[in-house]
C-alpha cells in the first residue's frame, strides 16, 4: 500500500543515523522492488534457466533433433531477411483470423439458438458434444481433398476446431443465468426481448469470452495442421518443409514462433475477459 510505504520510509529517516539509514533504505527498496515485480523477475529467471538447459541438451543430442539457440537465431534472421517469414506469418494469420471470426460469429449464434430453444438443444447437443470431444483434426486431409490446397481449406479446418467451445460456452452461459435475475427483470416489467438482451446475453458474456479463448488455442492448432497437409505458405507449411529438408533449426524456429503467438493471444484473451467482465473475478474468489 502506498500509504504504508511513505509512512515507514519517513519513520526510518527520523529514527536512524545517517549511514545506516542510507544502506537500510537501499536494501529495503530492492526488496520492495522484488516484491512488486516478483512475477517479472521469476519469468526472466525461468527463461534464462530454460535457455541454459536447452544449450546443454542441444550439445548432447543429435543435430537432427536439437540445435543450439544460435542456429535458430540465425535461421530467424535469414527468414526475416528473405521475407519468407513475413509471408508465412501473414498467410497463417489470414487463415487463422478469418476462421476464428467466422467460428466465433456462427458459434455464438448457434449457442444462443440452442440455449433458447429446448427442442433445438435436444437435437443438436449430442452432436456438438460428440464433435467437441472428437479429435476432428484427423479430418484435415479430407478438407484438403474437398476444398483443395489454399485458404478455403485452412479456414474450414480452423472453423471445425474453433467453433465447438464457442457454441458450448455460449449455450452454457445463457442456460446457467441466475434465475433470480431473470425473475427480477420480469418483475420490473421486462418483455422477452429485454430479458434476452439485458439479462441473458450480458450474463453469458464472460462464458462466451472463455469460449473464444479456447477457440483461439484450438484455431491455432487447426491452422498449423491444415498447412501441414497442404499449403503453399504459412508457418505450418514452413515447419513441414523444414522437417522434410532435415532443417532442424527451421523446424524449431517455426515452433517457437507459434508458441510465442499462442502465448500472446491467450494472454490477450485473459486480459479481454477481465476487461469485459470485471465483476467476475470477484465472484469466482
Amino acid at each position, binding site marked *: 500500500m502506498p500509504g504504508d510505504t511513505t509512512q515507514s520510509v519517513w519513520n526510518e529517516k527520523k529514527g536512524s543515523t545517517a549511514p545506516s539509514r542510507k544502506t537500510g533504505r537501499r536494501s529495503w527498496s530492492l526488496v520492495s522492488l522484488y516484491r512488486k515485480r516478483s512475477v517479472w523477475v521469476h519469468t526472466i529467471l525461468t527463461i534464462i534457466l530454460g535457455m541454459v538447459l536447452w544449450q546443454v541438451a542441444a550439445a548432447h543430442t543429435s543435430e537432427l533433433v536439437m540445435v543450439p539457440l544460435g542456429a535458430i537465431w540465425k535461421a530467424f534472421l535469414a527468414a526475416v531477411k528473405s521475407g519468407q517469414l513475413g509471408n508465412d506469418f501473414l498467410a497463417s494469420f489470414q487463415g487463422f483470423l478469418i476462421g476464428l471470426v467466422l467460428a466465433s460469429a456462427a458459434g455464438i449464434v448457434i449457442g444462443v439458438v440452442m440455449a433458447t430453444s429446448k427442442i433445438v438443444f435436444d437435437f443438436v447437443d449430442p452432436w456438438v458434444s460428440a464433435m467437441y470431444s472428437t479429435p476432428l483434426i484427423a479430418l484435415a486431409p479430407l478438407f484438403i481433398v474437398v476444398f483443395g490446397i489454399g485458404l478455403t481449406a485452412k479456414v474450414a479446418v480452423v472453423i471445425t476446431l474453433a467453433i465447438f467451445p464457442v457454441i458450448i460456452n455460449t449455450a452454457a452461459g445463457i442456460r446457467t443465468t441466475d434465475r*433470480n*435475475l431473470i425473475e*427480477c427483470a420480469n418483475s*420490473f416489467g*421486462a418483455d422477452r426481448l*429485454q430479458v434476452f438482451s439485458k439479462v441473458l446475453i450480458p450474463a453469458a458474456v464472460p462464458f462466451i469470452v472463455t469460449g473464444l479463448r479456447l477457440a483461439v488455442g484450438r484455431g491455432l492448432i487447426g491452422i498449423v495442421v491444415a498447412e501441414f497437409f497442404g499449403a503453399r505458405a504459412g508457418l505450418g507449411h514452413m515447419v513441414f518443409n523444414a522437417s522434410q529438408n532435415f532443417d532442424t533449426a527451421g523446424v524449431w524456429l517455426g515452433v517457437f514462433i507459434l508458441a510465442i503467438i499462442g502465448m500472446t493471444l491467450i494472454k490477450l484473451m485473459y486480459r479481454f475477459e477481465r476487461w469485459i467482465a470485471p465483476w467476475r473475478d470477484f*465472484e469466482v474468489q
Partner: protein
Amino acid sequence: MARLRGPVREHTTDASTPRLEARSLCKTFTKRGNTLEALHDVSFSVAPGEFVALLGASGCGKTTLLRTVDGLEPITSGQLLINGEEEHTPGPDRGVVFQQDSLFPWRSVLKNVRMGLEFQRKPRKVASEQARRYIELVGLGGFEDHYPHELSGGMRQRANLARAFCIQPELLLMDEPFAALDAQTREIMQTELLRIWAETAGGTVLFVTHQIDEATFLSDRIVVLTARPGRIKEIVDVPFPRPRDLSIKRTPEFVAIVDRVWTMIEEEVRTAMGMTTSHDSVDDLEHTALPGNR
C-alpha cells in the same frame, strides 16, 4: 417530499378502493404428482398509503403470497385485486425489493437503479436523472458508477431499495429485504426505509418478514400467517404515530405488541418445525424485544 413521486397514475376507482385485496386466495403447488398447499383461503386488504407487514414462520407461504401479488406466481383460486382490478402479470405499478441480492453484477449502481425505467422504454436521460435522485435519496450519492461487488451488503440493499422506489410504484413489495444484513445494519436500514418511504410521499407497502420486532416497528398492521398451509391467523394493529424512531422499540407498548404476536405465532412455529409440545428455544423467530430474551 412529494416532488419525488412525479405524476401519479390516474385511476377511475375512488379513494376507498383498497390498493390490494386478496379474496379467499388459495395457492397449490403441484410437483411430480404431489400437491402442496401453500396458501389457504387468505383474505385481507391493504389501503392506499398503508404499510402492512406479512409475518409468519419459515415455509408458511408468505413469500409465495408476495410473489402472487407481483404476478410472478399464478394463483390457484380466489381473487387478487389491485386497485380493484384482477392482475396476473407483473406491472410497473408494483416494485419489488427481493430477499436475495438481485442487483445485476454487470451493471453499475446507476444502471441497476434505472433498470425498471429502461424496461418501460423511458428515454435514457430521463431514466438516469430520476435514478440519480433516488440514489441520492437512499444515501448512495457518489456511488453511481460503482459495481455491486464493490459495495457492502447494506449499501447493496440501499441500491435495491432505490431501484424499487425509482419506478415510483403504487405498491411496493418487499421480501425480507434486510434478512441477510447484520443486526445493527438491519436496524439502521429499518429507520432508513421509513425515512425514504416518508420522503417519497409513502406508496403502499407490503413487507414480508419473519421478525416480529421488524414488523412491529415498520408497519401499520401486521398480517400474521399460520404454519403451512398459510392462513390468516390474525391481523394486528400497530398504533404508533409516525415518524417513528428506534427508541419506540424500548417502550412497554411496543414490547406488549411483540409479546402478543409472539404468543400468537409460537404454536405455529413449533408446528412448522415439526415440534408439538417441546419447550426448546425457537431460533426461527428472532424476537429481541422479549423481556426474557435480554
